[in-house]
């Protein structure tokens, strides 16, 4: 499917998707509440078949957080980027580790570095940082006087 067909197809599945232009691949903003339903459709609909989640990350925009999911299809070779805005105080979004298994580790990483709470995640613990670490290092307002992470 080319980019225009993808945009039409996705807006029929989820009418309140906000397409964003400018990127290399089609970008969509989805409400956090609609994400599980959309993820199911993206993965299991035959003409979409996004079976490969190649990047999962988060961006801190100081006013809000944005989850970014880069998806690809090994069958159709098309790519898509799904984003979701979360509030900064209690960021919550449904985990997708049951759909794409690779999300389990990536979500744990985002959980400890950004403080995003993934609902229904099978094993939401810290992965890289020690268990007693306080704060979310990849947020923009994180200060650490001991470990020099800002150059």
């Amino acid at each position, binding site marked *: 499917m080319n980019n225009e067909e993808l945009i039409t197809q996705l807006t029929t599945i989820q009418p309140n998707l906000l397409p964003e232009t400018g990127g290399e691949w089609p970008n969509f903003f989805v409400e956090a509440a609609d994400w599980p339903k959309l993820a199911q459709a993206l993965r299991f609909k035959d003409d979409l078949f996004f079976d490969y989640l190649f990047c999962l*990350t988060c961006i801190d925009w100081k006013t809000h957080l944005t989850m970014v999911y*880069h998806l690809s299809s090994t069958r159709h*070779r098309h790519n898509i980027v799904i984003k979701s805005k979360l509030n900064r105080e209690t960021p919550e979004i449904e985990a997708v580790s049951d759909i794409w*298994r*690779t999300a389990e*580790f990536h979500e744990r990483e985002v959980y400890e570095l950004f403080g995003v709470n993934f609902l229904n995640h099978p094993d939401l613990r810290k992965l*890289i940082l020690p268990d007693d670490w306080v704060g979310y290092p990849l947020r923009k307002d994180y200060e650490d006087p001991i470990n020099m*992470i*800002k150059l």
Partner: protein
Amino acid sequence: MIEEIGTTEQGDLIINVGPQHPATHGVLHLVITLNGETIKKIEPHLGYIHRSIEKMCESLTYRQFIYTTSRMDYLSSHINNHACAMVVEKGLQIEVPPRALVIRIMMDELTRIASHVLWWGAMAMDLGGMTPYFHAFRERELINDIMEETCGARLTMNYQVPGGVMADIHPNFQRRVKEIIKQLYKKLPEYDELVTGNVIFKARTQGIGYLSKEDAVSYGVSGPSARASGVECDIRKHYPYGGYENLNFKEVLHTEGDTYSRYLVRMIEIRESISILEQLVDNIPEGDFQAKTKAVLKLPKGEFYTRVETARGELGVFIVSEGGTTPYRIKFRSPGFSNLSALDHMTRGQKIGDMVAIMGSLDLVIPDIDR
């Protein structure tokens, strides 16, 4: 964080492998739940070599941040640099001179050979064969010598910069590359004799650590480890970059999905890389080795993503720019991180002795996982 060695209520034994263990090839800590000799669960604990490269990059300029990436996957540092140089070029729409493109691909493929050759030695050593390691280092030394002459460094080269390469190739470069090609053609049959056809090696690896095609895609496994399960995931083939579209090479695919096929894929990939080098070594175009770029690079506002095929799999560099001289946010999608996540799935129900073989066949580099 560190579980005590002990037994659970069900009578399972919990043991710790690492963080300082020769079989983990670095500081990786695995907490393994065992029922007798059978693995029930593996929990990796990461972060022993976490340097927060992503956070550091937020205060480094677009010329500086490339240097940190050589330290991620130090066995394919050229390819990491290539990815970062490409993402900056994509943002600024810099046209890279043809000479630089060819030099880059040659360096990438030399790196891939060096990495696979070293992996071959390490894999055999994991399974108890000491000799292959010395054979592997003999060939790797020759490649490192080429790197030293042209790039000025043997491990963290930092040779590929936005716009091309740092310096022109050394006058000896082409002769040296031809020498290494000749040497590899002579020695690769020796490699096969030592390990590939070895009965003990086969018995230790065939049918061990099976990973199906669906699981490989779902776990985000990429590179040779996924291609051994039949996943067509070679970025050089499917999303060609930097001149790979003009080259003639095969994507190596196996369908067995066991440890032995992961071994075979890498052995054939060495030969494919040699064939790429042969196509290019006498066809390096004349001209500039670097495009003219501004002293201070500023990426326009927006998001940029590049994917390259490192020796371990797919490396993605995701830059969010606000229009300044430093990236607002940078994410490295490292191949090792996703490959490691499949380890638990692959080892369940296997024997503890086979865990080392399975982990070896994933070709993990720990700084690449932790970043």
